[in-house]
């Protein structure tokens, strides 16, 4: 499975890459929102998206993806240090499939990626 991971912290990106690669996933990376929108056109099977990003935030990325016919089918897992219920609700309402807080449990993250990428009923 090809997974796009988006985070502005290089060590978080590295962690996500290692956590996913050991499970056999291919990982592509982006460090900001605009790059994420570009790399999303490489047809990833799932996307892990941080909320706090340097250019446009994760919520704006979700908003733009939902308005784009090519991108709005990509299942997104939001991964953020913003644990406020309001941010989570907004992310879900903008199309995110799941929302996970940092720090995460590696096994839970791998399970969540498989879950959101599975065909929806």
């Amino acid at each position, binding site marked *: 499975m090809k997974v796009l991971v988006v985070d502005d912290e290089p060590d978080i990106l590295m*962690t996500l890459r290692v*956590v996913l690669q050991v499970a056999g996933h291919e990982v592509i990376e982006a460090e900001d929102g605009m790059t994420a929108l570009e790399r999303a056109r490489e047809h990833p099977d799932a996307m892990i998206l941080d909320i706090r990003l340097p250019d446009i935030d994760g919520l704006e990325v979700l908003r733009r993806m939902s308005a784009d016919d090519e991108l709005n089918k990509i299942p997104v897992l939001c991964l953020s240090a913003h644990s406020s219920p309001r941010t989570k609700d907004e992310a879900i309402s903008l199309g995110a499939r799941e929302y996970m807080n*940092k720090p995460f449990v*590696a096994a839970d993250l791998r399970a969540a990626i498989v879950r959101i990428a599975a065909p929806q009923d």
Partner: protein
Amino acid sequence: VYRPRRVVLNTMTIAVIAAGFALPRFPGPGEPRPAWFLPYLLAIVVQWTTTSVIAAVWFWRAGSGRPTAQRNRMRLLAVGTAALNLLILVSALRPESDPEHKNVALQLANLLTASVFFVGLAPPRQLIERWRRPEMEAARGAVAELITAVTPSDVATKTLPHMLTIIGGQSAALYAKDGTLLGFCGDVPPSGSDKDPPTAHDPLRFGLRSGGELVVRSDSSSPLFAHDSVEVLAGYVNLIDLAIARCESAAKERQFISNAAHELRTPLTTMTGLAETLAENREHMAPDQVTECLSGVVRQGRRARDLVNNLLDMAYIESGHLPFADDVLVLSDVVYGSLDAAPAPDGCHVCVDVPPDVRVRGDARRIQQVVVNLITNAYRYGGEEISIGARPEADDVVLTVTDDGAGVAPELVPTLFDPFSRAASANGSGSGLGLAICRRIVDELGGSITYEASGTGSRFKVALRKAA
């Protein structure tokens, strides 16, 4: 008094006065009364009675909904006015009195009416205090509510109803420093950002030391004797100020804890994610991948350690428990000691221009902590060239750390020395506390720290006390 009634009343008064001037003469005691005298007397009685009744009703109604002391005083005036009118009527209508045998009941009634007026106009202090009890109870209730308030809006919600009870106003609104409506209570809703919609009477305004304002409005029959309540309210406003300051301070603490937790999440995420992966999959991972993971764990572990140390430093400094020595120091020794503790990374060059004879007063360890923080920031956010200089200025020595990096974004400068003020977009590995700690240390040492743009880079200036 409504306008049509006022016109009738004024006309009657003018007619009676004019008739008094027009009369040829008043009949003396015992003289026969001419035919015109009775209608004139009747006109005076009707005019006086009408005026008195209207005044009494106005006094009574104006007391309604007012604080107890104010209400009772207005009602005493209403009763006094009505009684005075009654006495005049009785005096005018009763048979000729005998000057030798005065009517005792009438004399007593006169005395009673005068007493009612006196108490209404100038009640004894004990009576006022007794009347004020319900409002004092309300004020005590409001103070108790203030203690449980969590936000400035909470302060407004919990206290404004008590405010209205104390002053007997129509509405009360609490505004923040920036004009935002924190809370409102009463009959007249505020009209958007307009803090002073047109009313018959100017509202009472109480400025808060925090910069906000309490605005209390009364209706058109804003009565007499309100100054007592205004004094009570003014005292109470000081408590509101304290409560708002406490709420803001608590909010800052909550924000600080939230920011600290947020900063810890990145190193924890990396360390736990990598450690769990290593523990479960190490035998299946390539050696360079294992090395990469271990390096990440070490790097983020150090970051977490630095953050925790900085948090502890902040807590110690803020609590006043961190001891500060007051030694005479050779500043260049402190600067070179800082460079030993935080050597320049590859690609960075540090130029030091601190004369060896420059001496300052302070704590060597703490000044070194400040210099290390500043040069570490310069390594992290600056360019390739960093310079450290020092020169005496009046009673101070000004130490400068200058870099040729991108500088600080103008919008960040005002809060640069606040905890966690780093730009949301910055993905540096700093804790967000370094400059805040620097400012607190320099403050404790009796100096100051400032930032200024230096061409395209940054310059931090630290003023330290010059040693004699």
